[in-house]
């Protein structure tokens, strides 16, 4: 049995030693800073293109914003309406289906009753009027 097994501490110490921090590869920090500078430059460029919008006459910018908002809101509203319509149509179809099934089964009941009535023409209980039944 190893020392590490007899006493857990040595294992933990060994792990601390094995997993101690290592130096990053040479030039790592410079690469990161270089990329970060590129990131800054890209952000600046994006901000500049956005800023150019604000250099337009304010009224024109306001109109663009208003139209954009209307389009977005309008499309959301339209999509909602379409969705509700589709759901309503589906519900309507269910309703019609249910009524048709009910109708079909009542029709079946009627056919069966007619079959019985035609197959037993005389002196059968069902041919007497209900009032004459005791």
């Amino acid at each position, binding site marked *: 049995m190893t020392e590490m097994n007899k006493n857990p501490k040595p294992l933990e110490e060994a792990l601390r030693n094995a997993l101690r921090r290592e130096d990053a590869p040479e030039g790592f920090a410079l690469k990161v800073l270089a990329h970060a500078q590129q990131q800054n430059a890209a952000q600046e460029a994006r901000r500049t293109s956005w800023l150019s919008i604000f250099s337009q006459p304010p009224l024109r910018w306001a109109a663009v914003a208003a139209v954009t908002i209307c389009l977005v809101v309008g499309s959301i509203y339209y999509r909602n309406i379409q969705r509700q319509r589709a759901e309503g149509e589906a519900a309507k179809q*269910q309703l019609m289906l249910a009524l048709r099934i009910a109708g079909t*089964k009542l029709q079946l009941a009627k056919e*069966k009753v007619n079959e019985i009535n035609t197959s037993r023409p005389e002196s059968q209980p069902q041919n007497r009027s*209900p009032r004459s039944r005791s």
Partner: protein
Amino acid sequence: MSTAIRKLVPLILLLAFPAILRAQDLKLPPGIEKLASKAKETVEVNMDGPMLHWASKFLSAEDPEERKAAKLVANLKGIYVRSYEFSDEGAYTAADVEAVRAQFRSPEWSRVVGVRSERDGDNVDVFFKLENEKIAGIVIISAEAKELTFVNIIGPLEVDQLADLGGEFGIPKLKTKPPSSKPMAKADKGEQK
């Protein structure tokens, strides 16, 4: 099931809407609910009052069938359908169906049609629920060799409204009288298998 319906609904399992089952008269035992897994086609419709009201808004006034439907459902409180079509006979038991029929052997329900056909094995029962001389509900149980259907329509329906159904949606004009507890037609071959 008629060809028209089969065309309309190839394979449908329509989703139940929540908290609806409590409102319907028909309580299906677990044995019946499980039939969906055996059926080759299942139709399930659960529409309570608000749902019917909402769906009826989409019925077209220009279509005669939909116009009549709108008038019919205006006062309805619910329509519930379960219909199972099987590939083979013997998919369900008589006991399962009888358990459902037994729910309607109470004073408030009248069986107006009860047909047992030994020739083709088709059994059809139609029950009316009567309240204040009006039809407050209809239950139809149709047990055919390869098809089992339960329909529950919760009213109120006027008697003449029911008569108006005749000719629309393929519903026959049933001869109706002021409500009576006596059945309109009954097979004499016995009710139960």
